[in-house]
Every structure is written in structure tokens, then in C-alpha cells.
């Protein structure tokens, strides 16, 4: 395990209460990710992929263990600090896009920049650049309900990249899209993340996605198992 890894998850455990019983989802899980690395996190439905992403992003807190991102252990932080950390350093791409319906496409991309506290000067241009990069430069004024599923996910990618986060988390990014659109989105995500030198963890049950990964891990029984690249693609 690399000591100076960009992202390091150490002995991460998380369980949920179901009635009187407790169900363990993650059990002393360890993971190290280097800067600029692209990890695909495989796992069946209910295996705990979303839980793991929630812990990495600071949305949720582990029962035990450390979540170290860029040298900061966020597992000990309080909720507010985790939120402030998230808005500065994490970008999200969700399966169901989760755009803000009351903001236009451009404003959706602007939002993380503003939340991060970037000065007003030039941020609209910056947001517009990212919209251009996802080929939606001319749809900046459109509200999400006027965009197709693929277009909404492209806006979500631009939004995830715009504030130049340390880490991008993608939870089933192609899950709500048809195969063709999914491929396009994935290529775009891959290219942009690599072009911008970002680190990314993609949670999916779709083994096709493994093609773009530097490393593939599978979540099974609350532990991560390394998956050989070729085996994953097959």
C-alpha cells in the first residue's frame, strides 16, 4: 500500500441498522489511489458501492477507519467541515443526473464554482468553457427539463469538473442512459478527466466501463478485491 497515496482508505467499516439487526456493508476496507488514477469500482446492486462513495465524499461518516484525501483525514471532521471539504475538492456525477431543476445548464455548472467561493470575475466564462467541452455550449440557457438524458449527464460532467476538484466520484454514470449515449458519455468523461488530470472513482455494475480504468476493484462481502483488467472486460 502506497504511503503517500493521493487517496487512502484505511480499515474502513460501515454497518446499518435494519430493525434490531445490524448489517455490515463495509468491513475494514482498504484502498489507495494515486493522483490522476482512474479506478472502476465494480459490484452488484446492494454490495455497498454507493455507501463507499458516500464515505469518500464525506456525505456519510464511517463507523471506523480513515478516509484520507490529499493528505486530509475527513473521517474525523464534523458534518460542516466535511461539507466544506466536499464543495472544494470533490466532484459528483450521479446515475440520475441530479441537476438543480430551477437553474439553467450554465448556472448548474456555475454553482460549484460559486459554492467554492471563486471570485465572480471570469467564472461565467469558465463555466461556459466546460459546457463547450461537453458540447453543450449553445444550451447554457436551457433548464434541465428541456434537455435529454444524455445532455443532462453531460451538464453533470461539466458541473463535476468545473471547480477543478481533487477527486471525481461517479455513481453509475451511464445507468440511466441507452447503450450508445452511455458510451459517448463515458468517452467524454474519460477524456475530460484525463485531460484535466483529475482522479476518479467510478462505481458501476457495468463491466464494459472497465475498459477506461487504470485499475479495477470489486466490492464483495464488504471488502475490495483486485480484478485483473482483462478478466473485468471479459
Amino acid at each position: 500500500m502506497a504511503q503517500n497515496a493521493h487517496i487512502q482508505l484505511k480499515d474502513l467499516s460501515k454497518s446499518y441498522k435494519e430493525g434490531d439487526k445490524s448489517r455490515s456493508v463495509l468491513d475494514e476496507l482498504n484502498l489507495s489511489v494515486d493522483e490522476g488514477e482512474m479506478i472502476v469500482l465494480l459490484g452488484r446492486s446492494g454490495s455497498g458501492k454507493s455507501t463507499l462513495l458516500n464515505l469518500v465524499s464525506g456525505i456519510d461518516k464511517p463507523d471506523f477507519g480513515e478516509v484520507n484525501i490529499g493528505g486530509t483525514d475527513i473521517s474525523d471532521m464534523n458534518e460542516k467541515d466535511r461539507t466544506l471539504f466536499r464543495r472544494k475538492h470533490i466532484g459528483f456525477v450521479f446515475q440520475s443526473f441530479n441537476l438543480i431543476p430551477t437553474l439553467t445548464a450554465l448556472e448548474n455548472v456555475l454553482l460549484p464554482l460559486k459554492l467554492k467561493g471563486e471570485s465572480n470575475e471570469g467564472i461565467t466564462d469558465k463555466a461556459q468553457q466546460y459546457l463547450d467541452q461537453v458540447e453543450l455550449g449553445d444550451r447554457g440557457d436551457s433548464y434541465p427539463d428541456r434537455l435529454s438524458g444524455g445532455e443532462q449527464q453531460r451538464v453533470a460532467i461539466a458541473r463535476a469538473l468545473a471547480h477543478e476538484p481533487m477527486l471525481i466520484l461517479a455513481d453509475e454514470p451511464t445507468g440511466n442512459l441507452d447503450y450508445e449515449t452511455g458510451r459517448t458519455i463515458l468517452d467524454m468523461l474519460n477524456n475530460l478527466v484525463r485531460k484535466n488530470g483529475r482522479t476518479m472513482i467510478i462505481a458501476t455494475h457495468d463491466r464494459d466501463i472497465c475498459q477506461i480504468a487504470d485499475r479495477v476493484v470489486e466490492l464483495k462481502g464488504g471488502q475490495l478485491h483486485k480484478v485483473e483488467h482483462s478478466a473485468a472486460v471479459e
Partner: protein
Amino acid sequence: MKNKTSNNLLWLSSIRFLLRHPWHFVLSILGVALGVSVVVSIDLSNNSAKKAFALSTEAVTGKATHQIMGAAENLDENVYRKLRIEGKIRKSAPVVKGYGRISGMNKTFQILGVDPLAETPFRDFASQQSGIELDDFITGEKTGLVAQHVADQLQLSAGDTMTVSVGGRTQLIRLSGVIKAGNDRSRRALENVLLVDVSTAQQMFNMQGQLSRIDLILPDKGEQAMLSRINRLLPQGTSITRSDSRSETVAQMSRAFEFNLQALSMLALLVGMFLIYNTMTFSVVQRRQLIGRLRALGTTKNEILTIILKEALLIGFLGTVLGIIAGIFMAQGLVKLVTQSINDLYFVLSVQELSIGLFPVAKAALLGIGATIIAAFWPAREASQADVSTVLRRSSNESKISRRLLPLAGFGLIIGLLGGAVLLIPNGGIAAGYVSLLFMIVGFSLMIPLIIVWMAMVFRPLMGKLNGIIGKMSVRGVVTELSRTSVAIAALVVAVAATVGVGVMVDSFRGTVVSWLEAQLQADVYVQPPSAVSRKADAKLEPKLVELLKETEDVSRWHTVRSVDVQTNYGTDQLVAIEQGVEAQETYQLKASSENFWQQYMVKDIVMISEAYAYRNNVSLGDSLLITTDRGRQSFTIEAINFDYASDIGTITMNRDIYNQYFDDRAISGLALYAVDGINVDQLVERLRNKTQGKQEVFIRSNKGLREASIAIFDRTFTVTIVLRMLAIIVAFIGILSALMALQLERSRELAVLRANGMTPGQLWNYVISQTGIMGVMAGILSVPLGILMAYILVYVINLRSFGWTLQFMIDPQVLLQAVGLAIVAALLAGLYPSRKMAQANPADALRND
């Protein structure tokens, strides 16, 4: 700066959300506006009445610092002469004061009898300097002055004659000129004054040789020395008081009445607050996912809280502005009702115009915005505290509330019990009553979700039988979306319960008064001169007329009543002297008394006080009351407390023989006559009326007639309460409409799924209407127990602590049915628009992802 820019975008998102839900936005503004408008209108009406009172007092009191008053109503004019000649008190002026009506003007005038020669230091408008033609004014002939405005309205000019009715006697007064007021303020105050010479006033009020009071201006320096000098000149029974303390006493009379009106208006605001709470909760519930997304992107809890509170502030601000404007309009009508009630109950007041003070408006603004923020705080806090991971999942909220049902109900029960405990606080006052009411409302609301689940168990099979699968679905829908439906139903329950509470309170009051009047009115015929204040018998019957009526054929026995204002150690109080002997016990219902009270009250210095008086002054059996009489200050022991709903200020009752021992007044205020058995009372009344032809104008009413007249006055004094209840009903109606309509409009996706699965527009209509109808029925049923609880507190706690009256609790089933009906009708109406909209809409549009 950092936060400012990001907040701008969040705020923009918020505003767009509100604008995308215009129905919801407008109805929540309306909820605030209605609550605020009721508070503003009541406040402005009360304030205008108060201001009018202060204005007229100020104008007629003038610059007087002190007043000398007699023991009963009047004092001997020799006191004035003595004061002037022996005491050399130059700055003194005699006043004779009373009320009357000028024919052609539909209002009561204050008739002020003055001596223009002594007036210069006191009242500019009544002095020689103001241009009063002395020769004309003090001719011995009855002359008077009115305001220019009144003269214009009556189309009279100097030299013309006007007809003035005083205590049932018609008098002709020649207009000798108009009152010249120094400024606009006094001009307005003097619009209800008829200025006459002292001797003219004495003739008009049958007060020869007597004065109402003597006004004095005492210098600050040496005031005490002057006072003791004056006191030495005063006969027993007369007293000297500061002018401002006297007007304060009068103003205090109506304080409980005003407070209760304000409290009722606060109840309307409370209902408004529940509506705001409902709207805000709903608005937050609607946006759970959106909030989850923002939180996932890194928006902090505080930022979410701030944004939602800012929204509430906007709604509160818009609602308050609208409410203040509407309140000012409503006040134009309400001020007449409030003035009418004050005139019927306490003192003569004529409000010509609404005075819009800054304070009531500022208070309303603070209340409206404050109440909105308070009501919105919990939903906003809940939204901001929500766990991001659960917020991002759709059904989490419903499962959360179903887990919370029992703890929520348990918590509600504890809050309700706490509310009950608040009532046990000794000397808790009216405020504690309202706090308890608030606790009980909140407590009951928290129990509503659990009760809804129980009710649904009963309704589901029932609706299944009545309306098949759609019926069952409609009931089930109420439970599956409990987090939204329960809030809407709770708001409706509170709104409708408020109307039940006030309705039952008014009915209980009326019922108690009706049965009390039945017991109180034992004689067959009552004779009373018309009086300026309906519930007071402050005018006098002419002795000759009394004799004439007593001697009428078929009158077997009679008794008289004298009612005067006296000074006691508690201020100015109403004293009633009754002529009846032991048989008075048939008339008076006693709450408490010492042994053999009725035997002793004819011979001993003891009095009976009404329960309102006992409560107001915190006195009970065995306590002493110091009354200023013509024989000096005398102590009377309280030996009985009677039920009396005629006055909330309370009365002291004593035997006429005892009264005559201490007061030189022999006047009679009312006469009760008993007919010989078997005589037709209506015919007797007719005969009595014929006998009084051409004499003092008096009201001669049969027992039934007087009862009806009394109830009519009662109803009139309660008009303002009934108007407030109507307003509460409107608030409730709009609340129901807004909550249910918003709820259904938000279900467009679910309804689109049903349409996509083959539900016809007709079936959809049936589904939506059934569901809103079920919610209406649930709210209607639940509002009954809460309404009765509210009425119970209003009757037994708030009313008791405001006025000290014991009321019988009476529930008119009609009020309850009305409440259930109101909830159902409003709920059905609320379903109309959404069902029509959804039936016409293309399901494909609603099924699209946002």
C-alpha cells in the same frame, strides 16, 4: 463575499422554485395576509376607539388638572359657590355633563353645560374669548352651540331650533352659534358636543341646583397646600381627583374587552401561522431531493436553512404588506362594530374616522414576518438537518415518518399535558390561557398522523364498498404520503377547530345569558328611561311618572332600581340600589353568600357584588368595600356574590333603604311592575304606554320584550366576535384549499402513471376528489374534539380570567356540523382544479424526468 455570490445562485434557484409553483406561492402569501389583516383591523379599530376617547376626554376636560365629584352622580352647586367665594379658588369651573340625541343626527352627543365666564383657563372653545355671545347664551332660554359640521348637516343656522332628546324627554334648543375650535384636533373632538349654559344643562338633565363636577387648575407649586385648603371646604362625600386618573379609570373599563378582541385576532394569526407552517413544510417536503442534491454538491446545512428562511421572509413580507392594506380596509367596517359594542357596554364613544397609527402597523409587520419565520423555522431546520444520503433516496421520508408515528404522538401527548399544566399555574392570567391553548393545539397536531393511520383503517373498507378500488386507493394514498397529507390535515384541523372553538364559546355565552335573563327577569313589566349606554341604566325616571305607573289598575306590586356610579376604594364602580325585600332572592342567583343574607341585607351595611366585580378586584365574602357616600367614606361588608352577565365591569348591589341612609339621592332609574294574576301582560303594557303619552319618554317592555331587547344588545356586542369567527372560517377555507390543492398538484407524476396505466380522466377525477374528500372528512372529524377543547379553554379559562364570568358550556350540534361541512366542502372544491388539470394533461409530459 464568498458566501454572497453562491447564495445569490441558491436564492435565484429558490425564487424560481416559488415562481414555478405559483398557486402555492400565492396561497401562502394569502395565508399570512389574512392572519395579519385580522390583527391589523382589530388593532386599528381598538386604537381608533381609544384615540377618539382620548380626544373627546381631552377636549372636554380641557386644561383641568383636578376634578371635584359628588358621592353619587352629582354634587351640590353650593360647593362651587363656596369654593369660589370662601376658598377664592379662581381657576375653577362648574360642569354639568350628560348625553342626548339631536334629532336628525344618528349619534349620541355629549351635552356639556358650562359657565363661559369661568371657562377661560379651561376650554378655549367654551370661553368668552372664543366669541360666545354671552347675552344670547345665558338668556334663561335654552340655547346651545354645535360644531359647524353638525350645523351644516342639520342645515341649521344661528337662531334656528333643534330638537334634543335627553333621558326620554324632548327639549327644544335654539342654536346660538357654532363652536369655534382652535385647531383641527379639537375640531374633530368637538363634533359630538352640544355646548350649553350650566343652567340650561341643569334643566335638561333635571339637575336643578346640582353639578356633575367642578374642574380645577391647581399650580404644581403648592399643590398639596391647595388640596388641603379645598378639602376643608368640601362637604362629606365629595372627593377631589386628578383629571387624568379619572379618564384612566374610564379607559380601563373596556380594557378586557379590547384585550379579548386582540386575543381573538391573535387566534386568527395563529391559524395563519399553521397555514404558513403547512405551506413551508410542504414546500420543503417537495424539495427534499433538490435539497439533497445541493447538499451533495457541498451546500452546508446553514446555507439551506438560510435560504428557506429567506423564502419565508419574502412570503412573510409580501403577505404582511398585503395584510396591512387589507386590514386597513377591513378596519373601516370593524371600527363601527367595535364602537357600537363599546357604546352598548361601557361609555359613549363616537368614532368618525379611522386613525391609522404607526404602532399597530409596525406591530403587524413584526407579527406577520415574525410569525412566518417562526412557522417556517422547523420545516427549514428539518430540511437542513436531513441526511444527504437518505434525502437522495425517494421513499426514505415516508418510511421515516411511519417509524416516527408513535414517538410523535407520545411527544404530542406530553406537550398537550404540559399545556394542561400551564393552566394550573396560580395567577397565570390570560396569557397563560393562550399559551396553554397553543400547547394543546401543537400537541394535538402531533398526534394527528397516528390518528390518520387509525382512521384510514376504518375508512379503507368503507370506501372500498362505496367506490371500489378507487375508493380504497384514495384512502391508501393518504397514508402512503403521510408526511405531506398529515401536515395538510393538521393545518385544516387547527383552522376548522378555531371556528368551532369561537362558535361554541359564543353559544355558551349566549345560552348562559339567556337562562340568566329568564331567572333575573321576574316582574311582568319593566320601565326604563332611554340611556346613553345600553347596558347601563344611568338615566332617571321622573317621580310623578313612577307614581302614575304604580297606581295603574291591575298592577299588584312593584319595585324600583337605582343605578349610580360611585367612588370606592377600587375606583369608579356601578352601584345598584334595589327596593325589593326578601323576595329579591327569587331574582338574584347567588354564587356564594353568608347565612341569612337576604334577611340581613335590609338592615345591615352589607352589599352583594357580582362575580365579575369579585374577580376584577380580587375580593370575596367577608371583605370590606369602602364607598364614598354623602355621609363620608363608609365601609360595607361583602356578604354575597351574584351571577351577573350584564356588565363585565361588575356591580355592587345594596338595599335601597341602606342606600337612602347614606346617599341624598332619591332618584329612580328603573321600575319593575307585577301584574295581577290572570291579566294579559301585553294589554297592561299597552295601557301603561297610553298613560305615559306626552310625558317623559320611557321604554315600557314586557318581560319577554325586555329579554328580547337584552339579547339583541348581547348579540350586537358579539357581532365583532362573530365577524372574527367568519374571518377565521375564511382563513380556514383558504388554508384547506391551498394545502389540498398544492398536494394534488404535486402528485402530477403519480397521476400521470395512473393515466398511462389506463385510468380514464373520469376515474382520475373520481380518485382525486375521493382523496381530497377523505382528507376533508378526516380533518372535519378531528377538528371537533380540538374545537371543543379550544372552546373549553376559551370559556373556562380565558373568559374567566378576562371577565370573571362563570358560563355554562353549551355545544350546539349545528356548530360542529358546520365545521365538518366546511372541511368537506373546501376539500372537495380543492380537488376540482387539480383533477381537471390532470385529466386534461398529457401523461407523457408529467412522466418525463426533470
